[in-house]
């Protein structure tokens, strides 16, 4: 069985790439026997989802803020 470090790395990499079948299997098999990593798995997914949600709604300047910005910059 792989170590917690290796399982965690696979779960971290999952945020950025598609896992291979082998990686998925090794991680899931490890997590089956490891409560700590199951918790990390769950929280990782939640964190990832939350960040994705945040990114789908990025902060933007309003048009009045942009106008204000333009005015201020023109003053110089």
């Amino acid at each position, binding site marked *: 069985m792989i170590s917690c470090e290796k399982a965690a790395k696979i779960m971290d*990499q999952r945020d950025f790439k598609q896992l291979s079948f082998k990686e998925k299997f090794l991680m899931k098999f490890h997590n089956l026997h490891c409560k700590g990593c199951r918790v990390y798995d769950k929280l990782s997914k939640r*964190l990832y989802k939350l960040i994705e949600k*945040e990114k789908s709604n990025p*902060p933007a300047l309003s048009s009045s*803020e*942009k106008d204000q*910005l*333009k005015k201020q*910059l023109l003053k110089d």
Partner: protein
Amino acid sequence: MSTKNQIDTSQWVDQYSDALFGYAYYRLNDRELAYDYVQETFYSALKALDRFEQKSSVKTWLFSILKRKIIDYWRQQEARKTKAVSKIVSNQDQDTSWVEYVTAKNDRPEVEIEIENSELRSALMSCISGLPEKWKAVFVDKYIDEKDSEEICNEHNITSSNFWVIIHRAKARLQGCMKENWLNN
């Protein structure tokens, strides 16, 4: 203004302000401050326009100015930082116990869900801004700006295994920081 640089600065706000603002916002966790930093970035760039050698694109150049300003800000905040980390988390703790939340969970009005979403959002932002400087830089570069891992390693002068250690520690820290908020969902 020098003639050697034929850069049309009149379009800068339209072209770059949103990207700069988003970059600043995710690293400063403060809308007004982010606005001010975008403004200052434009000011500094206009002042230094003569010295801009066009080795890089205007966009890259503006970002490098903003980045420097943000790092300076982080350094200034370093001492005060520890206090700010759990502010939102503990605030919410006082306002509503999670038991109340759980029992009220069914039949909740739309507005309430909206509020909860925005609370989660601001908790996330606050937790991110509480990360140590280097972790924060690496984490936001990767998760928000979706930069290449290799590029991040080069920029921050770290090895690939360092990179994964930082990602993992930042995630673990954020999970701990978010835990209180997640109890409510």
